[in-house]
């Protein structure tokens, strides 16, 4: 669809009414070709969409560059080895983010320790052991669809009531991690399921014809072959969990001391940014530094996921 066609445009257009039955017509039955004026359109008008589309692409790119550039520009000066390894002082205006990084890591650890077995188990169930039309499979799938859309603040409410109060875990890293585990499940399950479905059916048939049990087939063949899908799910899950703020405010809390155990409250990196910028006047410098750390970590994580997904798609 390059410039060449422009030359023949008017000529072909005059025949348009006769050739309307060609394959493209069923695609647009509702709109009786409003895009085809009888008179040939003047060139400036046909340039307009092109200019608009390029301008929008440029606008989006510029916005992205503005946001990331601003954070790098202001944040880069703050980041040093000392910033990463010392505790915050003066409610975060000075000092570093060491306890916050540790708390973030612990929350992530709890989240993954719970969500990985649960998510991969469910994915195996949905992909390998449940016919697509069974009521149980459909029910689980539907409920995961809803779960994927639940606003993070509602997860926060639920985590506060269930983990912090009903189970008596209080404001702790454990409550926060468990809440995040519920939140990342849909992503994890979807990627793991896709990974399992991408394993060629020959594997299963060959294993069955050798008389292997389904358990052996799963452990020895299917899971190793589905590792890329599981990894993508894992990495995307980490990304989602690290970016989360709202679900953690009422579950893991605000305390910025170095956590001593999983029952201590711990402040995640995203909450640190929120607190510094909203509640601490003069906290912007360190907020920029923390934001840069978070953005770099997330860009790395999401980049890894994209890389794995790309390579894995080429393989099959």
């Amino acid at each position, binding site marked *: *669809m390059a410039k060449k*066609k422009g030359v023949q*445009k008017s000529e*072909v257009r005059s025949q348009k009414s006769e050739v309307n039955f060609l394959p*493209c*017509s069923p*695609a*647009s039955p*509702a709109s009786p070709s*409003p*895009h*085809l004026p009888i008179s040939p*359109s003047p060139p400036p008008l046909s340039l307009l969409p*092109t200019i*608009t589309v390029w301008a*929008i*692409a440029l606008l*989006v790119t510029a916005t*992205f560059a503005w*946001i990331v550039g*601003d*954070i790098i520009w202001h944040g880069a000066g703050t980041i040093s080895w000392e910033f990463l390894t010392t505790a915050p002082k003066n409610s975060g205006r000075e000092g570093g983010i060491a306890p916050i990084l540790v708390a973030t890591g612990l929350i992530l650890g709890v989240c993954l320790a719970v969500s990985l077995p*649960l998510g991969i*188990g*469910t994915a195996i169930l949905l992909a*390998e*052991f449940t016919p697509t039309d069974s009521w*149980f499979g459909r029910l*689980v799938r539907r*409920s*995961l*669809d*809803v779960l994927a859309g*639940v*606003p*993070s*603040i*509602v997860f*926060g409410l*639920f985590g506060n009531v269930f983990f912090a109060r009903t189970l008596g875990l209080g404001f702790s890293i454990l409550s926060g991690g468990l809440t995040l585990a*519920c939140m990342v499940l849909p992503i994890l*399950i979807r990627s793991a399921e896709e990974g399992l479905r991408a394993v060629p059916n020959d594997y299963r048939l060959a294993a*069955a014809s050798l008389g292997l*049990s*389904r358990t052996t087939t799963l452990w020895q063949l299917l899971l190793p072959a589905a590792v890329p899908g599981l990894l993508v799910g894992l990495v995307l899950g980490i990304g989602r969990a690290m*970016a989360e*703020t709202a679900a953690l405010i*009422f579950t893991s809390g605000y305390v910025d001391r170095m956590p001593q155990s999983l029952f201590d409250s711990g402040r995640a990196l*995203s909450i640190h*940014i*929120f607190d510094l*910028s*909203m509640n601490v006047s003069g906290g*912007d410098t360190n907020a920029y530094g923390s*934001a840069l750390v978070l*953005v770099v970590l*997330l860009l790395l*994580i999401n*980049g890894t996921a*994209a890389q794995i997904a790309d390579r894995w798609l080429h393989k099959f």
Partner: protein
Amino acid sequence: MSLKPQSADWLLLWTLRCLGAIAGAIVIAIVIFLVLEALPVLQQVGIGRFVTDPSWHPAEGFYNLMPMLWGTLLAMGGSVLIATPLGILSAIFCQYYAPKWLANLYRRLIELLAGIPSVVYGFWGLVVLVPLINRLHPPGTSLLAGIAILTIMILPTIALTADASFTKIPSSYLLGAASLGLSRWGTICGIVLPAAKSGLFTGVILETGRAIGETMAVLMVCGNVVQTPHSLFDPIRTLTANIALEMAYALGNHRSALFVSGLVLMGAIALLVVIAEAISQEEIYG
């Protein structure tokens, strides 16, 4: 696979079924706990007063959620209205205008944009966007700032969904259009957009859900004054921001009322899922 599992597999099968049941039950648990916590205020105060009360002063027993509901709806509506054309045109750029290397680069950029956490968007909005709007019309923290930030945040959702649904259009459609000598823009308006209609609707629904549920970013840039806004420059408070702000100290009926707004959010999301479901059904049978 319809092979009958051997007896040795029953352990695995039931373990998996238990895990699946737990995963599926989380949504139900969320709804049950929200309802349980919201029940006291619903019984004592009744649903009607959430709409008819003169104001939102939970400490004095006034529970009008309408200003927050308007805040959520206006911020959502505005951002969806702006982000949808921008996102779809972005996807069109990727598929039909940009050279391949640029399209890949641009796609990667949008994916990165999708990965930036909401608190960072909120922070950027607070330190860059709000002062700019303040210069235009004080106080700066406003509905407009909320719409702008939400637009940037939900744009990747619609752009990536639209891009995926354009990829699924059979190439025979495009070849047919080319052989008819349709212009590039004519092909897009007459063939690509109608053919990708249901995918685009799904994208709009996904971005709407994201806009409704977003908390931190709007909390940081919207000013959080409980009022029904009369202009773009008025500060607003959304339902989600209200929960995040007041949950820390809310007790008794006040706390209950926050769970009611949580239920409202859940209801909105459930409605969106049902609509998305209906659209995909239509895609198959329509």
